[in-house]
């Protein structure tokens, strides 16, 4: 009976609590599963929405940016494929960020009544965005097939680059998401900041345009440092012949991990008092 022994005391030391997170691993699944289920319940088209949204965005962006404003894609990629590959990565980031920033507040009733590692809440709300991504991959492959004659796909690159790109995106989103969700418990202003921030970031990231639009080398370099920009470029690499800048990818990954560490640190520091604040 005395197998587990632990202490409850005032919080002072810092730890990620990985061991505990692992004990509660099933909760990730249940939270994600609940959110996915609830999201599409009572929607006639259900999961189709995860497919239709990026498709509609791709069409409108193609019309406005490519046909209208004559924005050039990287290399010879047809603009729809170019836009969609950017959008898929962007959607993981933006939906994940939006979900996780609100997650602690919207689950306040549970947080006030039951103990479990709080990190499960923002992290699983980001996983919901990842589930949507998996559905939208279907449309991605359909679009690639549709443009197969004007598009060269490097399958090996696709198999390597796409997972790495998703990994960088997810780590970045985890970092910013946990950070914002912790702040949102204390400062409700972030409910208004986050949607604005996402709109703002859409234009900062090379979702709709090539990441090499800047003539200025310094600006170009800053753009390359951005992990989301890196992830988007990586997702487009299978359609290009240019050399992949792996050292820069490592830098992106490193920055993403820094964000993650910062986010989790902030979250863990304020976590104990969520029940008192929410």
């Amino acid at each position, binding site marked *: *009976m*005395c*197998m*587990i*022994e*632990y*202490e*409850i*005391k*005032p*919080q002072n030391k810092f730890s990620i609590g990985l061991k505990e997170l692992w004990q*509660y691993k*099933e*909760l990730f699944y*249940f939270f994600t599963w*609940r959110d996915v*289920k*609830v999201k599409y*319940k*009572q929607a006639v088209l259900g999961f189709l929405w995860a497919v239709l949204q990026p498709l509609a965005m791709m069409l409108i962006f193609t019309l406005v940016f490519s046909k209208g404003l004559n924005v050039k894609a990287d290399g010879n990629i047809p603009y729809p494929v170019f836009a969609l590959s950017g959008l898929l990565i962007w959607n993981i980031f933006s939906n994940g960020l939006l979900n996780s920033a609100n997650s602690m507040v919207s689950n306040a*009733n*549970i*947080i*006030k*009544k*039951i*103990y*479990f590692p709080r990190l499960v809440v923002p992290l699983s709300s980001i996983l919901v965005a990842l589930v949507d991504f998996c559905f939208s991959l279907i449309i991605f492959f359909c679009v690639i097939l549709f443009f197969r004659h004007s598009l060269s796909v490097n399958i090996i690159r696709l198999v390597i680059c796409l997972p790495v790109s998703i990994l960088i995106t997810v780590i970045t989103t985890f970092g910013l998401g946990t950070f914002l969700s912790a702040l949102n418990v*204390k*400062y*409700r*202003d972030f409910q208004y900041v986050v949607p604005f921030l996402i709109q703002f970031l859409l234009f900062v990231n090379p979702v709709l345009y090539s990441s090499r639009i800047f003539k200025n080398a310094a600006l170009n370099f800053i753009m390359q440092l951005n992990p989301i920009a890196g992830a988007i470029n990586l997702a487009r690499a299978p359609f290009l012949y240019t050399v992949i800048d792996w050292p820069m990818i490592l830098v992106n990954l490193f920055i993403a991990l820094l964000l993650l560490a910062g986010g989790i640190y902030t979250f863990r520091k304020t976590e*104990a*008092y969520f*029940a*008192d*604040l929410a």
Partner: protein
Amino acid sequence: MKPILEVQHISKEFFIGGEPERYLSLRDIVSNPFKKLKQPKVESFWALEDVSFDIMPGESVGIIGRNGAGKSTLLKILSKITPPTKGKIICRGRIASLLEVGTGFHPELTGRENIYMNGSILGMRKKEIDKHFDAIVDFSGVEQFLDTPLKRYSSGMQLRLAFAVAAHLEPEILVIDEVLAVGDTEFQKKCLGKMEDVSKSEGKTILFVSHNLSAIAGLCTKGIVLNRGRVNFIGEVNKALTYYSGSLSNVGLRNQVSQEAQLIFQDIIVRSEAIANSDVFFIGDNVNIKVVIKVFRNIATLIVNLNVINSNGELMAHLVNEDDNLILKNLSTGTYEIDVQINEIMVTPGLYTIDLWAGSSYAGDSMYQMSKSATSFEVIQGKRMNRSSAYPSNAAIFMKSKWSINEAVNIS
């Protein structure tokens, strides 16, 4: 054998009045970064002070105390929902806490899905839920509606389902807060029976908070009496209950008419919004009072009267349902909840008691029931008052006042 739970000098401080309790808004910081320096002192309030006790494996312990005694805070600390300010607790087992039934229930999910969701939030593995699934469904009695969304369930069904999940938890220590206050009597009995099984035959340790003293007497072997954040008594359950009722002699709800009563006052609850789950109010707070009456015979006209009495025994206020145009006519037998809100209580800080009275008219001989000192609540000076000194206790009431100063024009 080592205790399964060692609570050592636990204290919990809450901040009242100042900003830390409210949501901070960035605007406050951005617009006036220096304001912090001259902010009025934040008052603090110890919900628990130096609470220590040990619990041996297999014991079932009832925690007794008035509203605001710190019971819920203690359970929250034990369930790791909020950390203590001082002290520590050593646990030698898995704790599952039931501070609320149906935590994590989602109205859009079906009964089946909610069993899994709720179970896993309560700390069950999927395998465990699979194993107990049939027993849970059986206990809840909602098999036909398993694949119906929860939002179509009646509240009774939701409650049964929720308790069924909770009853099949397999922790070493089970912490339960007042979950039986809801639901019909038959179901309450079933729940109590299940909890007795859990503690007696399965040898689990139970910590149980309830206002239902008979439930505590039936279920627990040991009692802890909390009063204003401190442990007043620890010991055998019957002694604890005696101690508690002794300390309550002036605040127990007792009905004066016992023979062939038309109705009885079953319960009275005073809840504060400022200090959650307590009966402590700031001057100017709204006081919410819930009176539960049980009517035994049909009543044509009912007048309910609630008197607020100060610590000197002087009548401070006389409240009647008709004041707010609530006419109570033709009540059939049954249980009713009457909610009374006193808007902005403007009385001097102190302890106040409430007398209840019910009758068919205002005449004394038309009385159905009376309960003297049914409950009490405390008013403290609090955040709305800016003065730097204490409000004098011999000033009977507090009045809101506006002050200004102008230079006088001398007309000589």
